[in-house]
């Protein structure tokens, strides 16, 4: 038994951390955050160049051939650095093609996605929630009509994997006619969303969509959880650093037991999440019986912890934490995204209850 990540995985994380540190320090995050598109093509290119466009795509299709655990470890690092951009939707689009596509579709799309020649995303939510495959209602029959909400970078993507009735998945190329996107004024300006309307846009079904769409969702839940752990750990770290430097009454505020205990309470919430995320990813890769339920429980837990930790971190920072200038607000808004995207904690706790036979 070995419940730990491997040396290769440690190296992968070190690489991503270094890349994020070099290419996307918080000053750069802030520029993108305050910018129009929430996307920096140069930054995205540098991520893709080290292979993050296709981490979990098999080598035969131009990817790195790693597992979801590895992808989650990447997501953790990106979350920790609050790296803006289309990583999440792009990764899920690739997994959707991989899990549900025909050989031809895989050959056609996976290398382009892995190499970053095409940008992918997923369109799941419908009006009034409806993130889960069994809630999707759009009907596709060569063409597609209807609206999907909260599509990450829907206006920039080349390829959208759209969830359809009965849990199906179809591919839509945004270059086609009949695809229109309208930006969402989202809280998290590091991961932009669009509502995307399809008005007879031509589409192509992924044959194994109904069997695979739940897996794609589960992968999304795990990547969000990993991002949430990374973000929560960073929020905590920022609060600890602040407590070590901010002076009041002639001492750093970390001397005050009230602050110290708040930070300790944050730490016991945050630190164990790392291992839960690992396990959820491991189960996705190797323990099929537990995969779906663990992903649901993990998403609910990790994103709740992130949200509360970000709140607590703002509080420890005091007034400055409440300003647009303070980096912790960026994490706070990422927490809002992670919490709500693909369904709020409540939704996944209820799913875990059902899946647990309760």
């Amino acid at each position, binding site marked *: 038994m070995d419940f730990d990540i491997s040396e290769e995985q440690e190296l992968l994380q070190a690489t991503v951390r270094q890349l994020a540190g070099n290419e996307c320090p918080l000053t750069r995050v802030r520029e993108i955050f305050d910018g129009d598109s929430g996307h920096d093509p140069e930054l995205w290119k540098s991520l893709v160049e080290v292979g993050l466009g296709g981490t979990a795509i098999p080598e035969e299709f131009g990817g790195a051939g790693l597992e979801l655990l590895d992808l989650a470890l990447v997501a953790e690092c990106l979350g920790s650095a609050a790296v803006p951009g289309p990583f999440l939707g792009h990764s899920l689009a690739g997994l959707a093609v991989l899990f549900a596509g025909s050989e031809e579709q895989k050959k056609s799309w996976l290398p382009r996605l892995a190499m970053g020649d095409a940008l992918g995303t997923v369109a799941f939510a419908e009006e*009034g929630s409806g993130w889960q495959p069994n809630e999707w209602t759009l009907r596709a029959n060569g063409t597609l009509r209807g609206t999907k909400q909260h599509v990450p970078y829907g206006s920039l993507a080349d390829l959208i994997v759209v969830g359809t009735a009965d849990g199906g998945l179809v591919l839509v190329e945004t270059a086609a006619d009949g695809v229109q996107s309208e930006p*969402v004024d*989202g809280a998290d300006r590091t991961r932009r969303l669009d509502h995307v309307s399809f008005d007879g846009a031509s589409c192509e079904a992924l044959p194994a969509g109904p069997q695979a769409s739940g897996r794609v969702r589960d992968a999304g839940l795990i990547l969000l959880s990993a991002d949430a752990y990374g973000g929560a750990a960073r929020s905590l770290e920022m609060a600890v650093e602040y407590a070590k430097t901010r002076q009041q*009454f002639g001492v750093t505020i970390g001397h005050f037991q009230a602050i110290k205990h708040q930070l300790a309470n944050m730490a016991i919430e945050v630190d164990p999440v790392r291992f839960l995320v690992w396990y959820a990813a491991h189960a996705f890769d190797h323990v099929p019986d537990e995969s779906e339920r663990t992903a649901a429980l993990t998403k609910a837990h990790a994103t709740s912890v992130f949200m509360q930790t970000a709140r607590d971190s703002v*509080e420890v920072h005091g007034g400055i934490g*409440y300003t*647009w200038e303070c980096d912790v607000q960026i994490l706070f808004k990422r927490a809002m995204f992670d919490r709500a*995207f693909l369904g*709020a904690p409540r939704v996944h706790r209820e799913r875990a209850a059902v899946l647990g036979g309760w």
Partner: protein
Amino acid sequence: MDLSYGEAYEAFRKEVQAFLAENWPPRAEAAELPRKDQVDRFRDRAVDAGYLARSIPRKYGGSEQPPDALRASVIGEEFRKLRAPMDPVGLGVGLLVPTLLERGTDWQKEKFIRPTLRGHIRWCQGYSEPGSGSDLASLQTKGELAGDEWVINGQKIWTSGAQIADYCFCLVRTEPEQPKHAGISYMLIDMHQPGVEVRPLRQMTGHSGFNEVFFTDARTPKDWIVGERGEGWLVSRTTLKHERSGLMNVGQATGQLPALVKLARRSLRDGRPAVEDPEVRQKLAEIEGYMKANEYALYYRATRGRKGRDAGRIQLMAKLIRSEITQEVAKLAMELIGDDGLLAGGGELGMRERPSDNRGWVSSYMGSLGGAIAAGSSNIQRNVIGERGLGLPRDWAAQRSK
């Protein structure tokens, strides 16, 4: 225990109603005047009638009435019904005027109180600094006497209203050689001068309610300090006391509940109104319990205040309780709005429940943190409750910094 106003007050209410019927909205001839003059004229009459500026002596433009919280409530209720002008809301009337009355010189009172009461001049408060939050007395903005003027240099922060204020009442270190609490003066500063720069501070909600204020060789006359040189800390405590013990509108205690219930009614869970979900119902009723307990505590404070009797340590608790409740409300709202929790905050806060837009609730979710931070953080409140309310010993760290 009697929760009605009683006959005397209902008679008084009739008087107020009659006054308003006569004077607001302005009659035809006055309605020709600019709005500002209409308001001035109305306020003059309301002061004459004893309805505004009630605690202020007549010679400074007030109506000098004996304190009576119930009369004040009746006036407020009737004025608000017709949206008649009341005493200007803000730090000038709320904090500066009481301080001047208690510690100001005659010329200061004459110069500043009347126009403040009439809303002709507006004030901001220059207390907090980037390095001085909970430990306010460590402030560093310095004032040096140069001839007949103070020359002021330094930075203030969290200065609400600075962008529209005419003057600032400000804490400035004038005796740097003194221990920290003893080296501060309470200074009045004209905001309309080249040495004062105001920069808005954007909050995480996107709103800009606060500012930074930079003083660079700003100037103020030698005698524009309230109290003596070096006494500013004590002078400012006068106003802080006003700020903290000021009885907020009791209605605020439960004011958020109807909006929250409305939100629960129109939000869906699994296709049904969320208000039918057992978890939501429990949480709503739990929050209402806290709100109601707090509401009646405020009634008690008001009653004791009117009787001139001490209400005890409950007086120290209102802010902390309110900020805890507000956070619970915001968290439940966040649960209720579902996917709209992805949206940027915006518009009105959630209390003005508007079915068309949940973004106000998102702002409330962020804004609810503000209560735990602003005007004495929750940790400071807990210290005060523990030490002054429960009689526990002072913190080592705080003792040490004395």
